[in-house]
Structures are given as C-alpha cells and as structure tokens.
C-alpha cells in the first residue's frame, strides 16, 4: 500500500516540475524532446541545465532519505541495446515519451498525446507479456 502513496507523492513532484517549467520558462518538460534538442545543440544552456538537474535528482533523494533509490535491471545487455535504440528512435519519431505525451500531453488534453499514450501502453503491455511468456 505505502508504495502507492510514494508513487502518488513522486508523481506530484513530477507534475510540479512540469508546471513550473511551463509557467516560468514556457517550455514543455518532455524528456525525449529536451534531450533531442540538447543533442541537436538547440538551447544548449537551458536544456543542458534541465538534464543536469534530472541526473542530480536521485542524488538529492539519497541525501534526503539516507539511501539511494532501488534500481533492479534484469534485461541482458543485447536487450538493453535494442531497447535503447527503440526508445530513442521511437520517441523522436513519435514526438514524445511518457513525460511529454504522458504527463503534459494528457494535462493539455491533447488528442495526439492521448493516441500516443494508448499506443505505447498497448505496445509495452504486449512486449512484457511476451517477455514473461518466453521467461526472458
């Protein structure tokens, strides 16, 4: 039960970050978009600062709670490479990921983002179901 509350609390912080970036800087806190623009050399200082902050987030968490966040990775390295390529290519082609389409898109009631969220959720569910079926 408590993990649901932690999830909700974490979500509130994520939403706060997204709301602040929009209200103060007028930007969408979509991680794939920000990283993509950073790689393209667009708005280097602000996009770089956001990514740096994002990387420091778990460090702040560790300082506050006295232990690092739990990360358990089960995927073997070939799967990690394939997954990374798909996530990188797919989020650029689809103009967003769980943050841009998922958080901001749904909050903006964007039909495009609704379609994107349904699509990546269905694709993710099918993928994990197949992984479990073949016990990978």
């Amino acid at each position, binding site marked *: 039960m408590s993990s649901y509350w932690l999830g909700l609390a974490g979500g509130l912080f994520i939403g706060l970050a997204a709301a602040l970036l929009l209200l103060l800087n007028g930007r969408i806190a979509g991680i794939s978009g920000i990283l993509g623009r950073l790689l393209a050399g667009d708005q280097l200082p602000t996009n770089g600062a956001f990514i740096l902050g994002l990387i420091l987030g778990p460090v702040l968490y560790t300082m506050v709670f006295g232990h690092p966040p739990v990360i358990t990775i*089960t995927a073997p390295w070939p799967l990690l490479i394939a997954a990374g*390529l798909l996530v*990188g290519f797919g989020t650029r082609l689809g103009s967003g990921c769980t*943050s841009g389409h998922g958080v901001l898109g749904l909050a903006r009631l964007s039909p495009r983002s609704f379609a994107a969220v349904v699509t990546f959720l*269905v694709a*993710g569910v099918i993928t994990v179901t197949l992984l*479990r079926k073949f016990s990978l």
Partner: protein
Amino acid sequence: MNNQIIRIATALLCGLIFGFGLSLSGMLNPVRVQGFLDIFGAWDPTLAFVLGGAVVVAFCGVTLAKRMQHPVFEWTFYLPTSKRIDSPLIIGSALFGIGWGLAGFCPGPAIASLSQGLWQTALFVLAMVTGMVLHDRFFKKG
C-alpha cells in the same frame, strides 16, 4: 538579473525536482515499470498513481498558464502546434512502447539513474542517444 541566467537556474531546478520525484515514485526501477505493464501477470499498479498525480498537478499548471499573457521569464509559450494523429506519431509511439517494455526504461528514469553509476543504464542511454541521432539524421521531416 539577466533573464537567461534565471531561465537556466529554473531549468536546473525543474530537472532536479523531476528527478527527485522519479526517485521517490519508485519508477527509476525498471522492474517496477515492467510490473505495471505486466497486467496479465503480477501487476503492480504504482505507475498509474505516479502518472495520475503528475497529470493533476500539471493540469493545474496548464490551466494557470492559459490565463497568463506569457511565462514569467519568457515572452511566449513554446507549445506543440501539430494536431494531426498521423503515422509517425503512432509508429514512433509503438516502437517506443516495445523498447520501454523490453528494458523497463523510458528516457526520464534512464537519464536520472545515470548518477547511480550502473553500466546497464549507461549502455541503455548510449543506445537511446544513438537512436535519437539516427532518427534526426535520416528520418527528420522537413
């Protein structure tokens, strides 16, 4: 003070809050994310709480933004203008979903957990960046 310096500080702060929230939510952990997608197995609904909480607060932000002439430190809002549900959106999102399920990482948690010094995360992010660059170099429209 120079607005650009404030914008950089704002971006840093927002990234920090975002990464902290991800850590608190438990969604840095790929096993938990895959658990959410495993609806026919041992389903872990936590991600729905994370997304729900985030969307509600972001919705308040969006509502407030609509009443503002411009953002506090900028002259205009930079919002997506495309309204069409087209094949790049659907194909891209489907490819992303497959990759998301395979490793349990989406871009935010993958980048945030770079600070935890795991080679698996570094490898994933390297592949993800490669995928982005490949797209932007060979498939970008316009």
